[in-house]
């Protein structure tokens, strides 16, 4: 359909943020008498009504354990649970449903890989970990290294807060057994060129574990195109419930891995003489999983498709550019991390006040930001700061909210200046 003559062609991308906001009940409330300005999305995102309703409906009408009972409710719950697995497979373009393991969150996903796949790593081997990792993609590797006598080697970042790709290339040695890297930095917003990094690592025969927690709410993820061996993310950062996360692993790798936890649901048969384990992914899902939360993750994925990645990416890119420009223009502000490709996060410090004091002042204006080290202390050390203020954005934030934040920062300067 073409636009009426005389008018410019409508944007291919149309985005109605007011409609989007109306889907998130929590955004309508006031905090300290001011409209909530929620800019702590990198910590956890708010939930659309479809997700809240799905979890509510499950407990009201559908609650039963899965893969157990022959009764109707159990059968329905099992179907609903497995349908979300298929939905996640499509969401990240994995080849098979069995490559999708439900876990508690990104942290558990990475610990699972470290404690199972990681058993192939031995004394003197090297685990390469980028300097911009969240502690959840560093500490599990340190634990493993301590257990087996391996070494965790940092892959450095630049002054802009980007991964130093030349240094990374040079860091591979014949002893390198694994690379752990984030898709998007939770502290800086930097988007790493994962496909390029993976092909470099694979050229050295090194498998790659990707922390995708901060990527999935902002960009479409295609694990086939990225080529990574493992990809981990959390439901709650992509508008789904807490307590559910996903580990994607290439089927041939998952099949070769021993179980993570033992218990019900992960076995084929059990006797005192010996136990055989269930095929993947069930082998890694011991015990009753977060059934309601998995079922709530389904509509979160549907919601993101409904909004549309193309539209939300264009909208968020403009919003974050505006935030970077406006926040950066406040006197006494220093932006921490100035990567070329960024999504979601703007981190900064102020001459006038410590991030905690900034956070407290902003909170009084109803603005929720994170102040601290963001579980990324090596990143803070790299920039020589103990902490930053982090404003993190999602598909429902607006330029007006950026303006409110900037007014709050001026108030910080007034109080502490």
């Amino acid at each position: 359909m073409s636009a009426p003559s005389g008018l410019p062609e409508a944007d291919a991308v149309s985005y109605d943020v007011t409609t989007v906001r109306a889907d998130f009940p929590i955004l309508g409330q006031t905090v300290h008498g001011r409209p909530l300005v929620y800019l702590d999305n990198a910590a956890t995102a708010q939930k659309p009504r479809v997700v809240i309703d799905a979890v509510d409906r499950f407990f009201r009408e559908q609650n039963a354990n899965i893969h157990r009972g022959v009764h109707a409710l159990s059968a329905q719950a099992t179907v609903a649970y497995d349908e979300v697995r298929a939905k996640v497979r499509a969401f990240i373009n994995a080849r098979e449903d069995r490559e999708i393991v439900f876990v508690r969150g990104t942290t558990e996903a990475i610990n699972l890989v470290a404690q199972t796949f990681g058993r192939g790593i031995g004394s003197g081997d090297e685990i390469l970990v980028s300097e911009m990792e969240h502690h959840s993609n560093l500490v599990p590797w340190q634990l493993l290294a301590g257990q087996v006598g391996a070494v965790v080697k940092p892959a450095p970042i630049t002054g802009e807060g980007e991964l130093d790709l030349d240094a990374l290339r040079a860091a591979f040695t014949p002893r390198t057994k694994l690379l752990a890297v984030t898709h998007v930095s939770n502290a800086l917003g930097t988007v790493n060129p994962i496909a390029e990094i993976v092909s470099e690592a694979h050229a050295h025969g090194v498998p790659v574990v990707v922390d995708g927690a901060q990527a999935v709410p902002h960009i479409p993820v295609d694990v086939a195109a990225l080529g990574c061996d493992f990809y981990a993310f959390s439901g709650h950062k992509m508008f789904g419930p807490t307590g559910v996360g996903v580990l994607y692993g290439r089927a041939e790798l998952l099949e070769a891995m021993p179980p993570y936890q033992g218990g019900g649901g992960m076995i084929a048969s059990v006797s005192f003489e010996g136990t055989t384990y269930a095929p993947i992914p069930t082998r890694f899902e011991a015990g009753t999983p977060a059934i309601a939360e998995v079922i709530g993750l389904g509509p979160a994925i549907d919601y993101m498709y409904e909004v549309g990645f193309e539209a939300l990416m264009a909208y968020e890119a403009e919003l974050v550019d505006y935030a970077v420009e406006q926040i950066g223009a406040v006197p006494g502000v220093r932006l921490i991390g100035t990567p070329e490709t960024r999504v979601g996060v703007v981190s900064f410090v102020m001459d006038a006040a410590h991030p905690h004091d900034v956070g407290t002042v902003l909170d009084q204006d109803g603005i929720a930001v994170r102040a601290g080290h963001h579980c990324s202390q090596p990143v803070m050390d790299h920039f020589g700061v103990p902490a930053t203020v982090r404003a993190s954005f999602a598909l429902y934030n607006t330029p007006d909210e950026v303006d409110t934040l900037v007014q709050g920062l001026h108030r910080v300067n007034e109080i502490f200046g």
Partner: protein
Amino acid sequence: MADLNELYQSVILDHNRSPRNFREISDTPHHAEGHNPLCGDNLRVWVELDGDVITDASFIGNGCAISKASASLMTQAVKGKRVSEAKELFTTFQKLVTGQASPQESKDILGKLILFAGVSEFPVRVKCASLSWHTLNAALEDAPEAVTTE
């Protein structure tokens, strides 16, 4: 509604900007390190004792306005006090910032430190105000381990 002016009183802002006794005491065995792992704040506290009297107190550290001002005012408050009096100050201060005691009933003991009464309206900031006191306590007890708020 909690009032920012109650929290960030001018004396607190002044001590944040120019902390007093912000130095090391090199020849005392009584010192300790304090750490708030959630926010990354850390500070070191030194005390010099003559018998059980605190003859000097100092600190160096990195932190928010509340933690820095609290440490600064603390070093002033404990100087010349007996160890037992400093510990009573700590207990009373802790009650004030957690809202268990009113400024009125604490002011005879706390003096200037009642400026921190506003902290009780900001529960997440209580640890900022009390970190230096926990660290002082450790220094007085010659605790070898760094103290932490967690």
